[in-house]
C-alpha cells in the first residue's frame, strides 16, 4: 500500500519498499504450511545454500515455544543475531496475516541490527491450509506441504496451496512408503495453480533445496532490478 512514497516520519509503516534512510529494504519471503511439512528444514537448507552469496536473516513464528528458532540456532545455519523469534499468542496465522505488527518490528529490527540485508525469510508456525501471509509483511510467499500429509492436499486446495507464489511438495523420498502418488499431486497442483510454480523436493536428496534457492534468487533479482 505505501510502495511508492517515503514517509517523513521516523519509521516505515508496513510494505514500504524503502527504509527511512532511503535505502531499499530487504526482500521478505514468507514460508507457511501445515505442522511438520518441513518449513524449518527448508529454511535451514535455504540459509546454507544462500548465506555465502547473500546477507540474510530469519524470523520464526512459533506457536508456543522457541523450538524453530532454536533448531536453526542449533544447526548453526546463521549467526544467532540473524535469527529472531516472534511470539504469536496461540495464533500464528494472526501474526502473519491479520495483525502483522510484531513481525514488522522483527524484520525492521533485524535490518537495523545486522543490516544491510538482501533477504529476510519469515517462517510461520505450523498452521492450517488457510494460512497465508499479508502483503504488508512479505513480498512473496512459499507454501510447504509434504507427501506424507496425504496426496489429496493439492486437490483440496485452500488459499495456501492455490495462491502461494511457490508451492513446495516436500519429502518426496517418502512417497513410496506412504502410498502418495506424486504424478497425481503434480496434476492436482497444476489444476489449482495454473501457471504458478511447484517444486517437488527431498531435502535428503543430493539437490536438497536447490530448486527453491533458485526461485528465491529469481525473486531477488526482480526485487533489486
Amino acid at each position, binding site marked *: 500500500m505505501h510502495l511508492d512514497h517515503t514517509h517523513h516520519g*521516523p519509521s516505515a509503516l*508496513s510494505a514500504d519498499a524503502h527504509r527511512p534512510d532511503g535505502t531499499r529494504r530487504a526482500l521478505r519471503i514468507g514460508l507457511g504450511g501445515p505442522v511438520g511439512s518441513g518449513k524449518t528444514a527448508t529454511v535451514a537448507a535455504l540459509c546454507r545454500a544462500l548465506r555465502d552469496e547473500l546477507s540474510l536473516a530469519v524470523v520464526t513464528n512459533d506457536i508456543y515455544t522457541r523450538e524453530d528458532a532454536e533448531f536453526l540456532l542449533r544447526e548453526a545455519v546463521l549467526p544467532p543475531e540473524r535469527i529472531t523469534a516472534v511470539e504469536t*499468542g*496461540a495464533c500464528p496465522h494472526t501474526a502473519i496475516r*491479520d*495483525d502483522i*505488527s510484531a513481525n514488522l518490528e522483527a524484520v525492521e529490527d533485524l535490518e537495523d541490527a545486522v543490516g544491510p540485508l538482501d533477504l529476510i525469510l519469515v517462517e510461520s508456525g505450523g498452521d492450517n491450509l488457510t494460512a497465508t501471509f499479508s502483503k504488508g509483511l512479505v513480498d512473496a510467499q512459499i507454501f510447504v506441504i509434504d507427501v506424507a500429509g496425504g496426496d489429496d492436499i493439492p486437490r483440496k486446495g485452500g488459499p495456501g496451496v492455490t495462491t502461494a507464489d511457490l508451492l513446495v511438495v516436500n519429502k518426496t523420498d517418502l512417497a513410496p512408503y506412504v502410498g502418495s502418488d506424486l504424478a497425481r499431486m503434480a496434476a492436482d497442483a497444476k489444476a489449482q495453480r495454473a501457471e504458478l510454480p511447484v517444486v517437488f523436493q527431498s531435502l535428503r536428496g543430493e539437490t536438497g533445496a536447490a530448486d527453491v534457492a533458485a526461485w528465491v534468487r529469481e525473486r531477488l533479482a526482480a526485487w533489486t532490478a
Partner: protein
Amino acid sequence: MSRAALLVLADGRFPAGGHAHSGGAEAAVKAGRITSAASLEDFCRGRLHTAGLVAGALAAAAVLGVEPRELDAAADARTPSPALRAAARRLGRQLMRAARASWPSAELDALAGEFPKGVHQPVVLGVAARAAGLSPVDAAYCAAYESVSGPATATVRLLSLDPFDATGALARLAPELDRVADAAVEAAGRVVDEGVDALPAASGPLLEVGAEWHAAWPVRLFAS
C-alpha cells in the same frame, strides 16, 4: 473527526499486537487463580481497578496534551515488573504503527521518532485518540476495556472456556468500567494542573509477580 473512530480504536481486531498478550491471564491460569468464568471475572475486576485505572488515566492525560515523555516515566514508576514494562513498550510500539497508518498526525510521528522502541501503550493510545479527534473519556474507556478484554479472550483459548461465559463476564463488569473511566478522567484532569504525581498508582502485586514468573517460562502461548 468522528466519535465512531472510538469503535475502530477499541476494536479487538485493531492490528496493534494485543492478540499475542494475555494481560496476565496465562500466569493466573497456570497458578490456579483462573479456573472458570467466575474466577475470570474476579481476575478481570482486579485488573480493571488497578492496571486498568492507571492505563485509563495515562491515556486520558495524553489526550489532554500532557507531555508523553512524562507520562511514560510515570507509567514506568507504576510498573515494578521489568517484563511488564517491556511488554507495555512493545505494545506501544505496535499500536504506534497502526495509529500512524489510521490517523496520520505530526504528534504521533514525533513521538515515534523520539521513542523508536516504543513508549507505554496507554500513552500511545491517548496520543492516537487525540489524533483521531477523540476525547479523554473515550481514551479512558478504551484503555480500561482493553485491560479486561485481553485476559477474557486469552482465557477462552487457555481454558477452552465457553466464549459466551467469558463475554458475559465482561458485560457484567460494564458498570464498574464506567466508574473506572470516570475516575481516570478525573485524575487526568488533575494531572494538567498538578503534574503526573496526580495519576493513580493502583497496582496488583500478583500481576507484577506473575509477569516475571511468566517471562521465564520456556514454553508459553502468550507473550505476556
